[in-house]
């Protein structure tokens, strides 16, 4: 049975009629052409499909579109203009925080989610250990995570203090 849903995706209103079993990640990729959100494990274990739902990082491969009805969705494509990167994206570029890049959008979104939580809680800059703990649900098979932690640390600093 089709359901009518309305949600905001990267600041634009989207209304659609979707079957109840359609996953949010498939809807974004197949219907809206937003292919930056990747599918890797299909079972919400790896974090490649992480996006922000009402400001919080969620794994979109195990969330139905109907669950996102009325929500505000931000994907990797919604962070920045074509030319200027979001500070967290810029940090991954600056620090070689990736190799094959498949996990990167999820890492960036999870990193931003962590920083926003800290901003709301007033808890300041994260330590490397706090970054590792916050992003343990995002896996990378290429790097040893060193540059990812470095990237998130730089991104957090820029986001919270406005400097590189």
């Amino acid at each position, binding site marked *: 049975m089709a359901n009518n849903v309305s949600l905001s995706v990267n600041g634009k209103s989207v209304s659609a009629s979707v079957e109840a079993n359609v996953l949010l990640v498939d809807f974004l990729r197949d219907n809206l052409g937003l292919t930056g*959100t990747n599918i890797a494990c299909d079972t919400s*274990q790896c974090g490649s499909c992480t996006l922000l739902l009402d400001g919080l990082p969620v794994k979109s491969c195990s969330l139905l579109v109907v669950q996102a009805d009325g929500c505000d969705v931000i994907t990797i494509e919604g962070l920045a203009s074509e030319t200027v990167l979001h500070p967290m*994206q810029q940090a991954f*570029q600056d620090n070689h925080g990736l190799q*094959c*890049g498949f996990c990167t959008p999820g890492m960036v979104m999870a990193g931003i989610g962590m920083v926003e939580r800290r901003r709301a809680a007033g808890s300041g800059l994260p330590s490397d250990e706090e970054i590792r703990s916050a992003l343990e649900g995002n896996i990378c098979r290429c790097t040893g995570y060193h540059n990812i932690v470095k990237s998130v640390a730089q991104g957090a600093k820029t986001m919270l203090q406005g400097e590189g």
Partner: protein
Amino acid sequence: MSNNASINGGVGSGISHDSTKKHANGTAVYVDDIRVPENALHLYAFPSPHAHAEITAMDLSEVESADGVALVLTADDITGMNDVSPTHSGDDPLLADGKVMFQGQAIFAVAADSLNQARAAAQLAKISFKPLPAILSINEALAQDSFVFTPQVMAQGDAEGELKNAKNTLSGKLNIGGQDHFYLEGQASLVIPQEDGDVLVHCSTQHPSEVQTHVAQVLGVERNAVTVEVRRMGGGFGGKETQASPWAALAAMTAQKTGRPAKMRLVRDDDMIMTGKRHPFQISYEVGFDDAGIVTALDMTLVSDCGHSLDLSRAINDRALFHADNCYYIPNMRVTGLKCRTNKVSNTAFRGFGAPQGMMAIEEVMDQVAQKLGKDPLAVRQANLYNASNNTTHYGMVVEDNVAPEIIAQLKTASNYDKRRAEIEEFNANNEFVKKGIALTPLKFGISFTTKFLNQAGALIHIYADGSVQLNHGGTEMGQGLFTKVAQIVANTLNIDLEHIKITATNTGKVPNTSPTAASSGTDMNGMAAKLAAEKLIDRLRQFAIEHYGVAEGDVKFLPNRVKVGKQTFSFKEFVNAAYMERIQLSATGFYATPKINFDPETGKGRPFLYFSYGASVSEVEVDTLTGEAEVVRVDILHDVGRSLNPTIDLGQIEGGFIQGVGWLTNEELFWNDDGALATHAPSTYKIPTMGDRPDIFNITLFDNENMEDTVYKSKAVGEPPFMLAISTYRAIWQVTKGNLDAPATPEAILKACGEPS
């Protein structure tokens, strides 16, 4: 930015790779991201529920009539050959024909308007099986003489005789587990039908030419009707060398039969169940040694579990044999390789390609010898190293570029090995349940494909009349930074900024008959081919200047981003345009075949490698002997990449390879149940390292060295070798358990090895 002093992004600059920005903003396109036309079909392959069975009846009528289904494919629908074996051994059917050989083997495929429809339809199949006895372990295979290929022996001296004469002897066994690649991007292919029945295959593969070959073979057409393109992969690690073909072939069959685009992406569980992995090995050895710990004789057998078919198992098992000496000279050595056929998914290439298992074997021997003599394991290792007079391997190659002794000495000092080892001994004496261990292991890894014909590469470079350059070669990009390194090489050779060089997708229509991007050889071979192509262009341009401007050869100088001809200086762009106007060909191919190499499997002798890469690592671990949990607290690495083409990329490879190796030897356990079903087929049960597993202290240094062979800008390969640095982590844990430890050293295995607390 043009600069008169030097170019931007040349060889040696530590730039991040070319797609970094696109990865960060989500615009990098993988196969699954390519926009497909509305009428595209999506495929699902039905996996065998049995490890070994005869198919006695198959009724797919309900599958065919299910919602959205356009086509159902069985072995009978294959117009060409029903085989996708990489070495043409004929034992890798695309679709099962009458019998199944492993749990997960594709029996039939469904193409439907959506993947969900295809999957749902496949469940309606009515198949009857007559189960057959299945071989599910190395021991069962050995007992039944079940092998995929003949044994290989490599030997020097008289191992048997000298074992009898040895002052001390020891024998032992070691079981080593396999490993799933867990590339983040699963297997994926998209086939677009072309005119004349041709197909364009977008495929996530390390071996486009093999996918082309297999697709053509299955369709029953010549290879010129099949074009394979790969822009990038979301990780490969060897898992997309031979394992990409079946899915591309099924999609190509669908495209050919329906005229509609067809896509096949394996969901993770199917990917883990249906595709091959690293080979589990069983090692047994008998070693003879003197009181100083010098190994005088060694007889070792390396048995691999190849799964149901040959795939690349011959070369993989051989590479294990080639590395069973690691850095050590053993005058009387015999190593035998046995390749078992079991009813499991066919094991395949994975970073290291057998060498990790071979090195694990000899490093076990070193620790056993040291333990028996009560010596520092590092002292025993150092005493056995190749040196100037003892430098011939068991396969007859002379080790000419040995830097292992220097690397070990430098790392030993830099990591404070002696002091820390003493502190650890003290710590262990004062702590009953938590114990520490430290180990230093070296590595020597042979570079070149041991299958000689694969050591060839091609490149194609165009300079356009505006001075911009397009670069293509046979190597594929899987995140390792190959495309960037080769572009840096071309920038250097043409002496222009990197930003003018456009990197293009690997395409069988541009460079034909390519070898897989494997054996760590991607940069060595494709970089050299590209350099040769660029040099051809420079030669042509120089000749043009001499003739057109009437100057001597020495008066033409290619300076950064400009060309000096006599007293005139042109920008590269102006100069190239002038050459174009004078009808100079501005496109060139380059071809490289690795020199000096040969190996004769009959005699087990030769020079299979152009050179060796070296490295060493020290790991310190802390083990809770009551829970079996081990934590890697500190790692120090010193690694040889020759003259680094790009230190940022090389350090990333070293770090990533090491951590992947630690995963193999600690967390990552593949578990098959008694029916031959893989129980650990998702990341919920199969644990690759996460962010929290990184050692607290992790120092990586590049060893100052240059390749003594004539490699591209004196660099060395880096892809696989660092994986084997992780052996020090396993050896450090072993220092705590003092033996009885199979790999992976999971908490369960460690607890078992520690035994009951007294």
